[in-house]
């Protein structure tokens, strides 16, 4: 029984996948509202079950393990898919492939869970693949759109390439340590040439998934081309989960190479922040804009990672939670805009506050959170990252982080300016509202507004990170 509890997340997801298969046999998904409603309820149940008390430990000869932190991370991601499901309601109602969408999304999240719980590099590899391959299919889901298939292609080719490189690295690491279970790697790791070489290749593979500069170039194109729900999933779940894994990899798996990777990480961080922000500066497409913004955000995450301390991992997890809410809210609003106006251009946001004050307020909270403006939660997230980053005394990194705070503020304020200050070019009609989207947006917004004022959350993360 304990074991079953250990796999609780995975079992539920697997059950859902199975259920979807059964549903597809019965053509249940033709009853759109009922289907989507059921899915949302199930995802909510899934999310709630995640909070039940939990056993921790490892199983399957160490291939699978779980800790409080991993449980918490999975819970965050469960919340993410629930919210994404809610925000994409309108799109799914129109899409022909809503069942497949859920199927692939659940498969992907299954891969993510496998990756998070992995105790062996093989599982890590499988998890990465499993979380990516369905997304590639999903990003091609607007089957009639050129951009969508281009996005799918770019994602699958780039990701195959990056996997190839990562695998080559893993193979060399295997040669160096002899066994790829985490315990063995940690025990046998020596900082030598081959290990470093292999480490870099593996790092690049994960950096690719997190879209760290210079491995990020696929990001913007794929984000732009994919359906908004998929972009949302990519930017939030996919990226967030890899950030969690990244912590495990760097702090535990390659903790022995800390002196070496610290420097590399800080350079990657500087590059990501700067390049992401500089590109975001020139974007007019909302999704592309958020793509570059998310690249910059990862740069900030790396500042915390470079802290190489408990505070580092705490602040990173905390930040991802906030980042998840902010991005989902932003994409939710963009999706609503795109549904109503058919435009994803930032220009179409002009004068939004006058025509749709609620959407504008949701958006502004999300953007402020991304920019790190108080009292929104992103402020705390970002500052804790910086505080943690100070631990390694990488002053140049912090300096760049400071510069990029300003730069990113400009980027987000540009959108705020469109919404609040500029006059509308063409009047935005009052957007359609549906309950699901509103619930999601309200949840995100409330979350963003109060997280900073509920210290218990941070405290809890701190506590589980210390274990």
């Amino acid at each position: 029984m304990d074991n079953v509890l250990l796999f609780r997340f995975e079992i539920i997801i697997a059950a859902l996948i199975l259920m979807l298969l059964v549903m597809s046999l019965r053509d249940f998904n033709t009853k759109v509202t009922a289907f989507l409603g059921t899915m949302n309820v199930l995802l909510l149940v899934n999310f709630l079950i995640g909070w039940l008390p939990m056993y921790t430990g490892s199983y399957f000869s160490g291939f699978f393990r779980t800790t409080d932190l991993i449980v918490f991370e999975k819970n965050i991601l469960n919340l993410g898919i629930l919210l994404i499901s809610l925000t994409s309601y309108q799109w799914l109602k129109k899409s022909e492939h809503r069942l497949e969408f859920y199927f692939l999304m659940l498969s992907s999240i299954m891969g993510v869970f496998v990756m998070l719980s992995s105790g062996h590099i093989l599982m890590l590899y499988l998890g990465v693949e499993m979380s990516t391959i369905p997304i590639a299919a999903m990003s091609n889901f607007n089957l009639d759109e050129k951009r969508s298939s281009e996005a799918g292609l770019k994602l699958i080719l780039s990701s195959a390439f990056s996997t190839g490189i990562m695998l080559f690295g893993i193979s060399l690491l295997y040669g160096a340590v002899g066994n790829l279970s985490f315990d063995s790697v940690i025990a046998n790791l020596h900082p030598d040439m081959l290990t470093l070489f292999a480490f870099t290749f593996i790092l690049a593979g994960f950096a690719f998934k997190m879209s760290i500069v210079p491995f990020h170039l696929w990001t913007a194109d794929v984000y732009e081309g994919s359906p908004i729900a998929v972009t949302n999933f990519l930017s939030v779940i996919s990226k967030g989960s890899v950030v969690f894994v990244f912590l495990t990899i760097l702090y535990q798996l390659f903790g022995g190479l800390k002196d070496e990777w610290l420097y590399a990480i800080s350079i990657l961080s500087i590059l990501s922040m700067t390049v992401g922000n500089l590109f975001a500066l020139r974007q007019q497409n909302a999704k592309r804009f958020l793509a570059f913004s998310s690249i910059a955000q990862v740069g900030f995450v790396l500042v915390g990672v470079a802290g190489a301390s408990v505070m580092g991992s705490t602040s990173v997890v905390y930040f991802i939670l906030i980042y998840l809410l902010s991005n989902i809210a932003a994409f939710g609003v963009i999706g609503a805009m795109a549904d109503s106006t058919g435009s994803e251009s930032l220009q179409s946001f002009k004068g939004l506050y006058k025509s749709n004050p609620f959407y504008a307020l949701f958006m502004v909270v999300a953007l402020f959170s991304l920019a790190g403006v108080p009292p929104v939660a992103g402020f705390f997230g970002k500052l804790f990252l910086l505080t943690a980053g100070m631990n390694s005394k990488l002053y140049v990194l912090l300096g760049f982080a400071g510069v990029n705070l300003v730069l990113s503020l400009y980027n987000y304020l540009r959108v705020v300016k469109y919404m609040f200050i500029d006059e509308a070019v063409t009047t935005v009609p009052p957007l359609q509202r549906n309950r699901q989207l509103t619930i999601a947006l309200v949840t995100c917004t409330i979350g963003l507004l109060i997280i900073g004022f509920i210290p218990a959350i941070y405290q809890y993360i701190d506590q589980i990170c210390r274990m």
Partner: protein
Amino acid sequence: MNSYELSSLLIVALPLMSFAFLVLLSKQLKPRVAGIIGTLTLATTAILTFYVAAGYFFGFGMENGAYVHHIALQFQWLKFSDNLSIDLGIVLDPISVALLIVITVVSTMVHLYSLNYMHGEEYFARYYAYLSLFTFSMLGLVMAVNIFQMYIFWELVGVSSFLLIGFYFTKPSAIAAAKKAFIVTRFADLGFLIGILILSHGAKTLDFFVMIQRLTQAGSPYLAHFTATSFLGLSTLSWALLLVFAGGAGKSAMFPLHIWLPDAMEGPTPVSALIHAATMVVAGVYLVARLFPIFAISAPDALLIIAYIGAFTALFAAVIACTQTDIKRVLAYSTISQIAYMMFALGVSGWGEGQTEGFTASIFHLFTHAFFKALLFLGAGAIIHAINSNEMKDMGGLRKALPITHITFLVACLSISGIPPFSGFFSKEAILSAASHSNMLVYYVGLFTSGLTAFYMFRLYFRIFWYKPVQDHHNHEKHTWAMNSALLVLVLGAAFAGLIPFGSFVSATGSPIILPFNPSFSVVPVSFGLIGIFLAYFFFSKESDRADKTVAYFGGFYRAAYHKFYIDEIYLFITKKVIFNLIGRPAAWFDRTVVNGILINGTAVVTEAGSEAIKPMQSGKVQSYAMFFLGGVLLLVALLFIQFM
């Protein structure tokens, strides 16, 4: 607090209350009521002043045969540090009491006079408010116990002067004059302020009397480093005192800071009488007198400089006065010249036994000058009131039309020309005598100036009241009872104030001295005065071309003097051209272009350029992306290896 102290407090407080009252209720009160309230308050003040003065001079002021300062009130207003604080208070000593009398009397008369003169003005109540404010500030200045208190009231005086000069605030020339007066004196005050800072640091106090004590006692520890030569052969103390004097020079319109005073005549004429003749402009003299012991004992070189500046200004202003045609301007230059008299009188004075008569003479002249100059201005005001013009060419033969004005004006002219037995004679006599005892150069300049004074004053007199009568004048002394009574009161002072044995009341050390009166000495100055009067009679008693011919003879010099020796133009050049174009404009340009343009907007431009520069990276081509990927990996490997090795 005895009745004298209470009275002295009331002396300061009443004008302030009057000011507050009039400002707050300026709309509600009828103009006449406001004027009467102002005037009555001031009259009360004057009466209190006489009460206090009597009490001081004939009662509590004298201790051991010398007048001592009596602090009627003192409280700490702003504490800087343990030894530095701004105290506000009231001091009664001979010079302050003397000035109190001058201020309250003249001010009362001006208030009274203005009831007629300013009748019908739109902002009548405000005018009285400003007058009260000025009077309050001036009284506060005079009764200051602390050098910073003096500075505070000094500034307040400046601003009331500013407001009053700019009373006709819709007139561009009045605005310009008000600004000029304020800015020039402000510039001078900067010197005062720095002087105070130096003094405060040297003496470790801001209290006048403590400071005087610390900086005059032989062997005082505060003096040790202070009197050492520091810069250009003068000691730090001398520099400090000269900087303080700069402030005084600004207010008292000493050369080269005199340029504001003639322009200040743009204000209403009674204002000119009060502020720019009798009271405020003598603040500089009062300031030097206040610090006189320090000057005389510890920094005689500074005093000498003051003497020379005073002498030069006296002559310089007198020369210009001879050429001006606007009667108020003539009076203004005359004021400059007379104040310069007082200034050099202080300058030639010393400290030791028998050497301090200059000090007494200076204050004496201040006293008498206040009466006759106020009288002159008010007389001029009456004339202007009657014919609505300031220019001499519009005047002539006004004897009949303005009899009271004529008589009083004549008395004042005689007085300022130093003709016995009018008051000016005694004070000027004392000054010249003091100068002749210590510095002959200054004496000769003073002597010549007194001749010039007689000349230009009587030029004015003859030109207005004799010469060719003008036909057309409007207000034949109608509704002028208040103006006339003010003139009549002041004429008493102008005529008889000289008879006061001033030396027994006011002296540098406090112990009474006797001002020498020597008829044989008086012959020369008086004859200079008479020559001046004669010359004026010769040129101006009747319409003739004598004056023009003489002017033609002087040619260039006359033009230079007529244009006030182009000092204004030089100032204008420095301010408009040099400061605006060389400092102000470049500063503004630098700010917009360099600081904002390059530093701040430049950052934005660089960022945009950076964004543009890395644009090709995102080419949309997967293969290029993959190449960046591999390149990144290889560089990272190289980096790690370098780090590792």
